[in-house]
């Protein structure tokens, strides 16, 4: 894992004291709310429906045990005993008190964490594949480059006041688990004809009120040019991005308006001036960062573990967990273990202080001290010996953290929605809870197979509804919550935006509608066919027919 150097430590410590002073000046009246608001937002502090909300950055979703334990401490000491993991691999606290936030941030700084650039029109927390450094299908660990981007973009004076917020995602594997095509910039690691790794550069994807799948503007970028090329993109955006209309200010609007080809030309033209300058990554600096992400001390193990296989054979509950929650590790004898934060009827992404602390202990014991946060609002223990998975599963089960549902219909992404968020038009969480309960029968869930349901409480799409196989968007119709459903979205290597199925459903009816869609799919699918494959084959018509037949 990356460890702060003296510059990082100084920067974060100074920022805590700056914010402490700003809060004091706000409370004394020296700063008005208009003056203070941009300062608190620069430190991730929002004012939501019930209270302040603090968003803490988790760079590329990677945490040490000490950091997760500290997040649990913050939940208990400064909040109401829980935190909410978000679709940007961050954590949000829903109840901090303004005058306690400086102390909270000081506690986070002790474990090399902060809330800088988790809000505002700047480059936000860089996200990455949550299986980075562990996945069998990976070309290289993308966190090396995510960290380099983090260092380059932190307090970058040229990019601190962009037209709008800016989100970058990086993946090192061909199977896209970082949703790179729906980010402002997506970096997909590829090999060129000579077999050298570099990046496909995707620009102008995004969700929100104008969902767009990002086009590729460069098929292959050598790694040493990463920062200069990103800087060229940012400069073109900073110069030409609209600042007169918040709804047209994201880079996706610019790329769409000028066209991907012309945008690429503008970037290449800018890049020509800076590509061989100070931003070229020196090999020794790259090696220095790579060293932080060196693989842990894996043992040489056989690919199969007889104890693991026996347990799987003997215990059907464990077998079910293995089927959904384990992913292939690059090292023989190890597995990636997903920890679902979606128990039946639970709040997607929420974890209690006790669960965080318990998981921190389990990571220390079973996974080289590492935890990951996925953009699907689950946690991951990335490096677990097959021979220890059973013991880990038992320990997880004791804490209510062993739901065997990763990728299934109850593994729902849901934004905080109207239960917490000032921007929301409708509730998301209780809809997710009701769907989860409706499909509570695990046997049924496993028979349905992979199915990605994603729910947003407003058009800003924090719940990724556009890219859900079943997407649900909460809307307000004359003071009542309604839910518009889309089908066929995807955030993986086959990124697609869902199609609106028809008129929206009421709060009471939306869960029945989801069940009707699922039942229709199960009735129509061919053996082995996944939801989107069936949907592409049959189209909207059979789903509409079932959903609206009675109307």
């Amino acid at each position, binding site marked *: 894992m990356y460890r702060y150097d003296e510059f990082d430590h100084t920067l974060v410590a100074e920022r805590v004291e700056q914010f402490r002073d700003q809060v004091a000046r*706000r*409370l004394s*009246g020296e700063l008005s*709310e208009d003056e203070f608001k941009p300062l608190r937002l620069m430190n991730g502090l929002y*004012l*939501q*429906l*019930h*209270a*302040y909300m603090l968003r803490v950055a988790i760079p590329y979703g990677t945490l040490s045990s000490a950091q997760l334990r500290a997040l649990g401490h913050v939940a208990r000491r400064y909040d*109401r005993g829980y935190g909410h993991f978000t679709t940007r691999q961050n954590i949000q606290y829903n*109840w901090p*008190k*303004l*005058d306690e936030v400086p102390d909270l941030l000081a506690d986070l700084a002790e474990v090399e964490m902060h809330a800088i650039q988790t809000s505002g029109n700047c480059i936000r927390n860089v996200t990455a594949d949550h299986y980075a450094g562990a996945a069998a299908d990976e070309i290289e660990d993308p966190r090396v480059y995510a960290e380099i981007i983090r260092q380059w973009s932190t307090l970058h004076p040229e990019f601190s006041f962009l037209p709008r917020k800016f989100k970058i995602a990086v993946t090192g594997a061909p199977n896209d688990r970082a949703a790179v095509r729906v980010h402002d910039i997506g970096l997909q690691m590829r090999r060129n004809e000579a077999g050298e790794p570099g990046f496909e550069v995707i620009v102008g994807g995004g969700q929100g009120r104008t969902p767009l799948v990002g086009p590729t503007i460069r098929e292959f970028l050598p790694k040493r040019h990463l920062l200069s090329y990103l800087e060229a993109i940012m400069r073109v955006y900073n110069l030409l991005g609209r600042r007169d209309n918040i709804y047209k200010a994201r880079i996706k609007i610019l790329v769409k308006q000028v066209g991907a080809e012309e945008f690429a030309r503008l970037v290449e033209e800018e890049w020509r001036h800076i590509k061989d300058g100070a931003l070229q990554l020196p090999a020794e600096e790259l090696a220095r960062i790579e060293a932080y992400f060196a693989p842990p001390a894996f043992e040489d193990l056989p690919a199969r573990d007889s104890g693991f296989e026996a347990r799987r054979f003997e215990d059907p509950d464990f077998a079910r967990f293995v089927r959904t929650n384990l992913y292939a590790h690059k090292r023989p004898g190890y597995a990636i273990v997903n920890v679902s934060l979606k128990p039946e009827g639970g*709040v997607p992404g929420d974890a209690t202080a006790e669960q965080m602390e318990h998981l921190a202990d389990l990571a220390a014991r079973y996974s080289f001290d590492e935890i990951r946060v996925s953009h699907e609002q689950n946690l991951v223990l990335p490096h677990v010996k097959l021979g220890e998975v059973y013991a880990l599963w038992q320990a997880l089960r004791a804490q209510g953290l062993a739901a065997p549902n990763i990728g299934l219909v109850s593994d729902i992404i849901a934004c905080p929605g*109207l*239960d*917490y968020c000032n921007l*929301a038009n*409708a*509730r998301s*969480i*209780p809809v997710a*809870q009701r769907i989860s309960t409706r499909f509570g029968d695990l046997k049924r869930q496993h028979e349905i197979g992979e199915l990605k349901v994603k729910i947003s409480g407003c058009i800003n799409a924090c719940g990724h509804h556009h890219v859900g196989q079943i997407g649900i968007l909460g809307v*307000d119709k004359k*003071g*009542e*919550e309604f839910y518009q459903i889309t089908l066929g979205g995807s955030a993986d290597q086959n990124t697609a935006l869902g199609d609106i199925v028809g008129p929206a459903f009421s709060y009471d009816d939306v869960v029945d509608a989801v069940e009707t869609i699922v039942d229709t799919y199960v009735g129509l699918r061919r053996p082995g066919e996944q939801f989107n494959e069936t949907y592409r084959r049959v189209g909207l018509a059979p789903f509409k027919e079932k959903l609206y037949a009675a109307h």
Partner: protein
Amino acid sequence: MMLKVLTANRLRDGEVVYLTATGTWSEWLDESGLAETPEREAELLAAAELALAARLVVDPYLMPVAEVAGRLRPLSQREIIRAKGPSVRADLGKQAIRR
């Protein structure tokens, strides 16, 4: 005319508060001062300006309510949730406090 109350968030902790008839701030909707005329609305807004200047609250605004069985009830789902707490966590927010 629609019945309205004035609500805001308390500066120090973000708590949802309502302006009472005596000009103080309460955490409880039922203790709100009511505005039934444009003149009374203007008085509430003027009081909110003073509270802003005194650094008691942020983001004040008028919101419509209805009187149902002697109790005030917000008209929008958003304000119902602000007045009670998250609908998914009965143990949190004002709803968790027995009065």
